[in-house]
């Protein structure tokens, strides 16, 4: 491991150290933060990261925009809750089944949508999301206005809902898995094909890529992750209600990836943290929040289209250069002495 680390360039070393430091800080955090609401607050960030990562596969990787992904959280959440409430299947398995079901729904709607151009796809996803909300409101067995209570998540006999420290680490593990998989995907045949479709769908077609196939695949993967996030959210809060899935909430996930940086592994992480923090700080100033989120999107698209990750990368490059220069200086000093 260490020998491999030595082969990296300084910039890669800086990046890896930063990621490691972040991971360590997050891992020991529950030792210092014992307030259970705070821990719940951090666990919830996990939900957002997973959902935003899912949306990023669609937006950042394959270049399709959606303003309706909250609908997939709704499908994932309700399917998982219904399954666990009525069949007694362990909750964790229900969550996975729900994610696959959500991916299936994503695929079904992506097949006709994949032929639409960017702006019309946006419209279709908005309509889909409005429709989903209305559908939930019209299904009375979901008790849409008062909500449904859900079963606890049990992993190897450990009741995760009994202590928010458990959900915190569960969130951490889930996020780690999702980020690793997403990073692997972006360095593979499928990820490359999606990026090719994003950059130039016409020439991707000429180069042997089935454009429709990869657009649908991106949709399915993003629906899978959002569905899973929805299911996790429901079981984490122990409660599911239709109001959590109104269409305008979809904007928040777009906000997260634009803020953090599209087509990056850590963009959704930064975005989700920022979102949850601002939400908390401006909890009582709804209107200011709306204005601020709008302004963030406007500013980032104009001045920092790569998001915070692009900014951090630039900073990391500067730091690496500084380290290199410093080392080179020491070396020459040593050479001078001898």
């Amino acid at each position, binding site marked *: 491991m260490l020998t491999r680390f030595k082969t990296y360039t300084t910039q890669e070393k800086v990046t890896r150290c930063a990621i490691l430091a972040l991971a360590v800080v997050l891992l020991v955090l529950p030792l210092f933060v014992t307030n259970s609401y705070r821990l719940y607050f951090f666990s919830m960030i996990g939900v957002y990261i997973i959902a935003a990562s899912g949306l990023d596969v669609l*937006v950042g990787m394959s*270049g*399709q*925009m959606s*303003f309706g992904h909250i609908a997939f959280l709704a499908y994932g959440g309700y399917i998982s809750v219904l399954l666990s409430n009525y069949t007694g299947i362990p909750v964790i398995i229900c969550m996975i089944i729900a994610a696959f079901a959500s991916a299936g729904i994503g695929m079904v*709607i992506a097949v*006709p*949508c994949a*032929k*639409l*151009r*960017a*702006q*019309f796809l*946006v*419209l*279709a996803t*908005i*309509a*889909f999301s*409005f*429709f989903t909300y*209305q*559908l939930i*409101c*019209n299904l009375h067995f979901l008790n849409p206005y008062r909500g449904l209570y859900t079963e606890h998540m049990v992993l190897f006999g450990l009741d995760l809902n009994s202590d928010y420290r458990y959900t915190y680490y569960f969130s951490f593990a889930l996020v780690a898995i999702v980020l690793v998989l997403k990073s692997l995907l972006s360095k593979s045949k499928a990820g490359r094909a999606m990026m090719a479709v994003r950059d130039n*769908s*016409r020439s991707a*077609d000429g180069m042997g890529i089935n*454009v*429709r196939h990869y657009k649908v695949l991106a949709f399915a993967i993003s629906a899978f992750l959002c569905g899973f996030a929805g299911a996790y959210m429901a079981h984490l809060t122990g409660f599911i209600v239709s109001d959590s899935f109104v*269409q*305008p909430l979809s*904007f928040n996930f*777009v906000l997260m990836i*634009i803020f953090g940086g599209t087509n990056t592994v850590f963009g959704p992480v930064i975005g989700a943290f920022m979102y949850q923090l601002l939400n908390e700080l401006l909890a009582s100033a*709804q*209107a*200011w*929040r*709306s*204005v*601020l*989120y*709008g*302004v*963030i*999107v*406007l500013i980032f*698209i*104009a001045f920092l*289209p790569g998001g915070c990750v692009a900014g951090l990368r630039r900073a990391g490059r500067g730091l690496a250069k500084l380290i290199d220069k410093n080392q080179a200086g020491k070396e020459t000093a040593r050479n001078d002495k001898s």
Partner: protein
Amino acid sequence: MLISVIIAGLVMGAIYGMVGLGFSIIFRASGIMNLAQSEMITLASLIGVTLYQTVGLSFWLALALTMLIMFAFGALLQLGIISKYSDRGVAGIYMVLVTLGLSKVINGGCELIFGANPIQFPSVFSVSTVNILGAFVTPERILSFFLSALGMLVIHLFLTKTKVGIATRACASDAVAAEACGINVVKSNAVVWGLASAVAAMCGMMLGPIYGAAISLGSKVGTKGMASSVSGGFGNIYGAMVGGLLLGIVESFVGGYVNSTMKDMVAYLLLFLMLCVRPTGLFNEQAVRDV
């Protein structure tokens, strides 16, 4: 029952058509799907109710003044913000996001200025209902229907008969060629955004008496307006009106004969299916296929 359902459908349909018209005008001229259009309606209705109720102007004067204010606001929005992003060559999917960001800012701004509570829109006429073939309708709804028809006619005349209107049409079909012919494309786009915002002002003033002026007004009718635009063929301004009427009638029938809570669901499902099956709408004008 049947007559009142049809009348309700026609009235709401005409308003949806007007809302859709606002989307279509901008899309046709600049290829931008302007999601901020819905919040322009919110803003207009709040400005309108302030002028009408708080300032105490007559309804017509308030309407005219609101349209003027909104025209200026829309034109400034295009000149000050949207054109900057188009100049930077922002990609299509991010352009939609820019308009969505704008809509958040406008919506939040409205809440900060006018408050979160809906404002009761005082009735325009002294009679509370009018009897049409046995159906009782509020006169504001009838007014809305005729205002929509009038608005449609005015916009038609503006685009086909006036010099400025013809210039905007030239820009829409080929901006580069229009520029070469001495048409100021920047100005033309500003006029188009102003026009769409004035249409939004009309919608706001028509919807105020029906739903009350509130910050949720735009999101309530915006998607319906988009649905009208799509079903009529996005970018086709006459199609938007036909699409709106169709949507209004369908909604009204579902609400009247099936279940009133289902009517929104049916409307959104229609929009989604329309996009899947026939994205070019009833009046084929824009090709939307990608590979």
